[in-house]
């Protein structure tokens, strides 16, 4: 798990947003551009304060009038070889949508924290993961954090991953809005020396320079366009091992480790495996501990990397289960299931593994997920494990009939 009780003497109690802003600061960004939007606002406020206090040397903070401008500014800045950071959420991320593809297609290693929030309509400022999931195909790496320490540390890891010469793709560090961004809990704030030891300066081979003119993002006609997409896909594939290594290297410097692509919890002998990502994992693990105390073989598979999707690692981790249940806070409307469930099923299709798998969509628009909900889901999945039969493949965890 993320919090190491032995680190207690180094910890301070701060808001999740502050921990993330601090991590972005010690990453020595050269250009920051962001537009405030709930629940991301505290991150950019804290960064603004660091700037005003002179705590981020050699950095330009570009104030903009919208998220579209924020990402566009970073695309330009990153193309000059600068280390760049932003943060956004929900409708702000959606306003960036067009430019997200440009950032990836131009192979620009921009790091952006996405403070996950539901999307309108209806207007909703609370947490779910629909916003980043909707950017699934934009060519950005997507990592999901379980707690505030991981959300902060993942920013450092993200720079290390995306600036790797075999990757060079932008990256979203996703953290649940309010649940993580507004919680106060103990964290270790990485000191500058440690950050510098982990993350070397960004020195790209290709960048805009008047002395050595070149172009980024030019016309790619049908004779070359396919190869750009192919190379992006290859870069994503390369990212699989780079993400693992970034986590391993981080452990060497800080002692903290959260898994690379995935992380199992009580998984080795688990008959029922709960798969999920984001902050709900903490609640799930507490429930699993109760089952384990009763000798029941329930385990958890945490998915850290959603893009690239770690098919092989996930298939390996799941192959001995008797029943699998995926819990997630999104939906592909018209498919009646969330993206994680779809992808795990797809990854297993051409393999010998045939394990009954169901899914529950929870927490849309910030509806609270209680331990009792998780217990109900595990109880239902235990039945699936016993009988091998699935009644409902995928469903909303809770629908209030009187509101329909």
């Amino acid at each position, binding site marked *: 798990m993320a919090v190491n009780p032995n680190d207690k003497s180094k910890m301070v109690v701060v808001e999740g947003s502050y921990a993330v802003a601090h991590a972005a600061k010690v990453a020595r960004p050269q250009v920051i551009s962001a537009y405030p939007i709930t629940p991301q606002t505290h991150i950019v406020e804290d960064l603004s304060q660091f700037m005003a206090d002179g705590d981020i040397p050699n950095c330009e903070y570009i104030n903009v009038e919208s998220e579209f401008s924020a990402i566009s500014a970073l695309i330009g800045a990153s193309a000059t070889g600068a280390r760049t950071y932003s943060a956004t959420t929900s409708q702000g991320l959606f306003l960036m949508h067009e430019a997200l593809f440009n950032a990836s297609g131009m192979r620009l290693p921009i790091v952006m924290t996405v403070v996950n929030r539901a999307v309108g309509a209806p207007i909703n400022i609370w947490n779910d993961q629909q916003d980043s999931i909707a950017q699934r195909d934009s060519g950005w790496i997507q990592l999901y954090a379980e707690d505030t320490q991981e959300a902060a540390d993942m920013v450092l890891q993200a720079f290390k991953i995306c600036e790797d010469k075999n990757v060079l793709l932008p990256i979203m560090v996703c953290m649940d809005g*309010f649940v993580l961004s507004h919680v106060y*809990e103990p964290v270790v704030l990485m000191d500058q020396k440690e950050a510098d030891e982990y993350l070397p300066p960004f020195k790209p081979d290709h960048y805009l320079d008047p002395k050595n003119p070149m172009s980024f993002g030019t016309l790619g006609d049908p004779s070359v366009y396919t190869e750009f997409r192919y190379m992006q896909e290859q870069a994503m594939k390369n990212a699989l091992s780079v993400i693992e290594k970034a986590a391993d290297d981080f452990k060497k410097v800080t002692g903290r480790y959260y898994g690379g692509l995935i992380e199992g919890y009580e998984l080795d002998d688990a008959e029922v495996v709960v798969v999920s990502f984001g902050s*709900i994992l903490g609640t799930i693990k507490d429930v699993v501990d109760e089952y384990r105390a009763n000798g029941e073989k329930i385990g958890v598979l945490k998915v850290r990397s959603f893009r690239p999707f770690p098919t092989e690692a996930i298939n390996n981790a799941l192959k001995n289960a008797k029943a699998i249940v995926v819990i997630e806070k999104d939906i592909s409307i018209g498919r009646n299931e969330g993206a994680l469930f779809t992808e795990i099923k797809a990854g297993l299709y051409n393999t010998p593994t045939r394990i009954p798998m169901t899914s529950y969509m929870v927490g849309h628009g910030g509806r609270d997920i*209680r331990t009792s909900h998780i217990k109900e889901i595990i109880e239902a999945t235990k039945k699936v494990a016993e009988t091998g039969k699935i009644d409902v493949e995928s469903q909303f965890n809770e629908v209030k009939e009187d509101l329909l």
Partner: protein
Amino acid sequence: MKEIRIHGRGGQGSVTAAELLSIAAFTDGKFSQAFPAFGVERRGAPVQAFMRLDDAPIRVRSQIYEPDYVIVQDPTLLDVVNVTGGLKETGALIINTKESADAFKNLDTKAKIMTVDATKIAMDVIGVPIVNTILLGAFAAATGEVAVESIQEAVKERFAGKVGEKNAEAIRIAYDFVKGVMNA
């Protein structure tokens, strides 16, 4: 693990109180977690904030439904919010009011009820009717979960200079008052 729910009205600093309590608990050597009932905060509307403390790191992220302790910043909330909802019998309810605890014996709870006129303390010492930090002093006395000195320290760290000093003084008065009632 101990779970605390704070009821207040938007603008009364319920979230700040939960944050400061989490810092104080950590100072005492516990792990802690504080978060608001994420809402579209409006001044005067009923709001909630939550806080957990434990010897082990805290992973659960749900809101708090069966608190060990409840703090009520504004007695008028008792008419509009079920402040005792889920409150454990072994727990405590701390209310900011002029009344004594006897006035609340009809409340639907078996938990211990402690009252303190935090508004009067606030007006006397700080000069403004902000009671959030003062109620933390009462909480420390009523529950023994957090040292009053740790609360004072957290408050002085958050509010520099005279404001912090006056808050710390008011916290101690509330603490002594509740201790006095308990020892009477």
